[in-house]
């Protein structure tokens, strides 16, 4: 439109209006940029315009939107900062105008289009370069200072929109990631009760805190609370990777110190300059002991059945990701039935202007015996109350079930449930006065009854097995129920199952009716002294 140095007042107003038009507010970031580029091209009588954004490494400019030179987008045009036309605008963070550019200056894509005049401005947001906006004209024209000003105004508008878009996108991506990695329901594990809480920090920013609980095929149970230093999407991404890597290492090594050593090596090699603290524990299959290793993490709390809460003394080794060749250690801690462990991140106990020891003392007072859900609720009420936590908080409470006279269990009628049934029975009876022979007999009788149910009660659709285990005085009774229609086995390969059930129980009752089958096994916990 212009090549004169002086614009009329009317022209100037028209230009401003064109870039601040209220209808632009309703466009999303992508459409807004397209619309602004088109308007800028029209006002400057240019043929092409594009937005290039600085990438994560801050060393390259990547095409984000292109008008009139769409191939830049399709080819994924990426230009180094410091070289070429766009690169110079980025490194100098100043507008640049060139006419009849020589080959050295102009990037190949621009050269092939044969632009005679080029003009570009930096996109700056919160004092930081985030990209470059350039326009090109095939016809030789002299861009003037008012033209540069116009382009810069458009650039400022785009920078603002891009910045808002990026922070919104990062915030929601971090929240989605965090939620997907912290499932609301912890896995049911026989013999343990547990609950957990996660709350984001100030302004709803998620960070790198996480908790995790899982069983291993061996029956060991792993529990983790960790904290990746930093906030937002980058911390959440590293957290996700650490969580997966830890699960993988846990499958191959039962020693917490070894697993943390591998994890440290992985972090230092692949995520340099990231740091994390972790408290990692592995319960023995019978759940009576937990082996703990700490990578610079705050101590777990053990709430005993008498009501007292103590700090679990685990000498902390260095955090993961620091350049120290640490020899990591494992501490074995007894976990009596009915007691519970609380693992947490620093956000729970650190308060502005307060000493860490005061936070830890308050947590000790807050922790009282109870079911983990109640305990978690009272921890959050007592420690956070009505103040918005500055940092994000993860809390995990795992309680070893108190001795229970009656225990119920429902599992899918599948062969893979048999190992879980044995584990549940063993854990339930672990601190009872039961002889090893009787325990083995009970396991055999109950698993045989369950295996029968798995093979004969349901068709291809499958179903459930219900177990009810009761201790009354010196007698254990286990009832195995299904709700299926019994089907005679197709190949009769010996009656060992029934034989074993009979021989391994003091009394065996099998009731079959229209509602299904129930097998009741009764057994004294001590052997008769008649041998």
């Amino acid at each position: 439109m212009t090549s004169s140095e002086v614009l009329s007042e009317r022209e100037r107003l028209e230009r401003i209006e064109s870039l601040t038009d209220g209808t632009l507010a309703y466009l999303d970031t992508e459409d807004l940029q397209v619309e602004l580029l088109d308007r800028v091209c029209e006002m400057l009588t240019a043929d092409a315009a594009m937005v290039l954004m600085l990438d994560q490494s801050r060393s390259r400019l990547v095409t984000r939107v292109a008008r009139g030179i769409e191939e830049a987008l399709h080819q994924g045009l990426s230009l180094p900062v410091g070289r070429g036309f766009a690169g110079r605008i980025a490194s100098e963070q100043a507008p640049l105008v060139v006419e009849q550019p020589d080959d050295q200056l102009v990037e190949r894509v621009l050269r092939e289009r044969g632009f005679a005049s080029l003009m570009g401005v930096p996109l700056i947001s919160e004092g930081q370069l985030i990209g470059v906006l350039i326009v090109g004209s095939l016809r030789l024209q002299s861009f003037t200072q008012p033209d540069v000003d116009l382009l810069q105004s458009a650039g400022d508008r785009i920078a603002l929109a891009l910045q808002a878009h990026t922070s919104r996108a990062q915030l929601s991506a971090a929240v989605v990631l965090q939620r997907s990695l912290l499932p609301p329901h912890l896995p049911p594990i026989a013999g343990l009760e547990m609950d957990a809480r996660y709350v984001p920090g100030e302004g709803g920013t998620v960070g790198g805190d996480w908790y995790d609980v899982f069983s291993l095929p061996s029956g060991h149970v792993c529990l983790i609370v960790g904290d990746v230093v930093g906030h937002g999407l980058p911390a959440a991404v590293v957290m996700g990777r650490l969580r997966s890597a830890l699960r993988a290492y846990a499958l191959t090594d039962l020693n917490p110190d070894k697993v943390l050593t591998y994890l440290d090596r992985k972090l230092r090699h692949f995520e340099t300059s990231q740091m994390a603290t972790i408290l990692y524990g592995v319960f023995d299959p019978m759940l009576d002991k937990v082996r703990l290793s700490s990578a610079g993490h705050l101590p777990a709390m053990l709430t005993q059945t008498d009501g007292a809460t103590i700090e679990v003394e685990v000498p902390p080794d260095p955090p993961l990701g620091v350049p120290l060749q640490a020899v990591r250690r494992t501490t074995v801690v007894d976990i009596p039935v009915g007691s519970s462990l609380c693992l947490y991140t620093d956000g729970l106990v650190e308060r502005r202007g307060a000493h860490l020891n005061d936070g830890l003392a308050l947590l000790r007072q807050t922790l009282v015996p109870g079911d983990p859900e109640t305990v978690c609720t009272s921890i959050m009420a007592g420690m956070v109350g009505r103040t918005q936590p500055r940092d994000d908080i993860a809390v995990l409470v795992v309680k070893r079930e108190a001795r229970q006279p009656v225990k119920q269990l429902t599992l899918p009628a599948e062969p893979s449930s048999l190992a879980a049934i044995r584990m549940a029975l063993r854990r339930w009876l672990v601190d009872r006065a039961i002889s090893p022979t009787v325990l083995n007999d009970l396991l055999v009788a109950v698993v045989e009854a369950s295996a029968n149910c798995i093979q004969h009660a349901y068709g291809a659709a499958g179903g459930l097995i219900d177990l009810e285990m009761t201790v009354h005085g010196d007698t254990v009774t286990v009832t195995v129920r299904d709700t299926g229609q019994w089907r005679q086995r197709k190949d009769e390969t010996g009656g060992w199952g029934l034989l074993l059930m009979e021989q391994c129980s003091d009394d065996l009752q099998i009731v079959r009716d229209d509602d299904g089958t129930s097998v009741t096994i009764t057994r004294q916990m001590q052997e008769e002294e008649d041998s």
Partner: protein
Amino acid sequence: MTQATVGVHEENSQARIVLDGEIDLANASEVESRIHATLHNQLTRVTVDLSGVTYIDSAGVRLLVKLASRLKVVRTDFRIVVPSGSGARRVVEITGLEEFATDSS
């Protein structure tokens, strides 16, 4: 999931199959095929060592019985090593496999 390992040691046409872990309906057929894969026609004796088995029931018995009958047909000696007083020994005794059982090899 039920887990077991199958180890095989062969010397002078005698195979020693060492089972460890648990055997039930969930893994019996897998254990069985792993045992079968180790058996060949030159063997004069097969010993199944249950010393490291922490749980076994009728599913394991079934595979041992099938193995015993097959080896009888091909006139190969069969032994089960199973320590006295163990849970596996009790199951072996109840199911009538005691004639093959020894405390140790």
